[in-house]
């Protein structure tokens, strides 16, 4: 029953806590430790390199920073920015948690949608936000993504989507589960209209998002080393009482098993997306 993932937030901000600041050194520039090569990297160098360590480790990235990295300057026009979740089930603590996360993250919801230009091509773009309740999908996320696919179908535009999600937002119960069916139906309409959808899976893409629009794209790309799977690793271990194979549920693992098309490092993503869009110009119309 591991529909919602058990992925631990990497810092307090993702959890909705208050300490987002990186570890400060006594003197000199602030640094961040790379969990892969264990080296301390000056923050300025990390930011200049789109949060990729020189060893190749991809740190998580805020959605707005990602948009800036991917689209042509000033071409992003946000849509549905005012759609956000209420507390439809009056779930204990949900309202407070969402408000805290809103204040800290500066985002209203766990996905940002809009239109943009990448290379020479116009497209619809959604980017999920790990810093908002680990990109969990509730009614608002489902509604925004559905509207974006409907908009893209109407205006005959391709869709590019960066996924990051711990799964369904359990505080919205069945309503969040139904978003899987709702978004999938919108993806299907867009697909049946002969239009292109490219998904880029980033760390982590799990649960109900994997089991819906993340896996429904014509072309599925992923960032290196991202966790990609359905059930939570801990739950699988508890259920099977077997040790998990090395590299289980990573981008490389799902590539090996035939479920994604390519792994693309961050610095090459824009070029790759621009090329793919250009080769599918105008859909099949």
């Amino acid at each position, binding site marked *: 029953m591991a529909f919602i993932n*058990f992925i631990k937030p990497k810092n307090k901000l993702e959890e909705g806590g208050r300490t987002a600041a990186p570890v400060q050194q006594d003197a000199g520039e602030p640094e961040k430790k790379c969990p892969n090569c264990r080296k301390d990297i000056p923050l300025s160098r990390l930011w200049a390199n789109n949060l990729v360590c020189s060893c190749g480790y991809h740190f998580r990235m805020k959605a707005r920073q990602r948009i800036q990295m991917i689209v042509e300057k000033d071409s992003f026009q946000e849509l549905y920015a005012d759609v956000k979740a209420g507390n439809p089930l009056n779930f204990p603590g949900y309202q407070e948690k969402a408000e805290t996360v809103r204040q800290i993250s500066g985002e209203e919801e766990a996905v940002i949608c809009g239109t943009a230009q990448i290379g020479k091509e116009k497209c619809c773009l959604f980017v999920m936000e790990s810093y908002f309740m680990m990109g969990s999908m*509730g009614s608002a996320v489902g509604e925004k993504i559905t509207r974006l696919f409907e908009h893209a179908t109407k205006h005959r535009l391709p869709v590019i989507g960066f996924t990051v999600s711990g799964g369904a937002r359990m505080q919205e119960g069945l309503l969040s*589960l139904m978003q899987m*069916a709702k978004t999938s*139906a919108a993806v*299907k309409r867009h697909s049946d209209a002969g239009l292109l959808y490219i998904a880029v899976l980033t760390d982590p893409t799990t649960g109900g998002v994997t089991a819906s629009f993340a*896996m429904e794209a014509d072309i599925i790309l992923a960032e290196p080393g991202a966790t990609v799977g359905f059930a939570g690793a801990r739950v699988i271990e508890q259920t099977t009482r077997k040790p998990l194979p090395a590299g289980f549920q990573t981008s490389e693992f799902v590539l090996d098993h035939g479920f994604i098309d390519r792994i693309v490092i961050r610095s090459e993503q824009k070029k790759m997306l621009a090329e793919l869009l250009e080769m599918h110009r105008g859909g099949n119309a």
Partner: protein
Amino acid sequence: MSVAPYERVKLARDNSRPTGLDYIKNIFQGFIEFHGDRCYADDHAIVGGIAKLNGQPVTVIAIEKGHTAKERTYRNFGAPNPEGYRKALRLMKQADKFGRPIICFIDTSGAYCGIGAEERGQGQAIAENLMEMSTLCVPVISILIGEGGSGGALALAVADRVWMLQNSVYSVISPEGCASILWKDAAQAETAAASLKLTAEDAKSLGVIERILSEKDMGKKEFYERIRTLLTEELQELSDDVDLISKRYDRFRRIGEGAAKEQV
């Protein structure tokens, strides 16, 4: 009506409830089971095939938990692997081709959480069912008969009508899982069960299901006859509908629309 939500969860999981195959045997005539997903294996947690409903050929698919310990092991306790969902989709597309209505019986704690299941694309298999079911040209009715465990249940429930047995439950996560994530305490499952709004009455008031089926005389002839009559009547109505696919789209499209508020 006054049964507490967590008691409902226990009732839904009760071993003595009729399972998918009991419904198939007692509601339909001449069931012929079809096996395999044509890719990898035959998943014993999902049973499917063709049968007649009051003389009309239909495709029937059921998640089966089994009754005895031996059966339950054989059925993997009703937790399907990806090949189960792929078999179900294969049979649904077959039904679509031959114009047969589809009836699904759902009873699972969730899609299986296993290493092989991940290796063979559990998420992808469920995603494909959600997508493909949304545009099937034939009527689809799904009935939750016990546990409706998250994506593993929804993968057979993108239907024109979704019904629930009075004491079945439908939830995005088990109450125990929810309690352990949110409050680090599985003992809070009762609170979680109440908060998740997972009973048939909750699902109906949220607009997620159309009908609650009474459990009066459950397992007896009258019980199955009642369901047979309801299915026959409903299929009659759905078969006359020329707008099936767009109505199915709208059925899911409106869920959560109101919960996602727009600021003024």
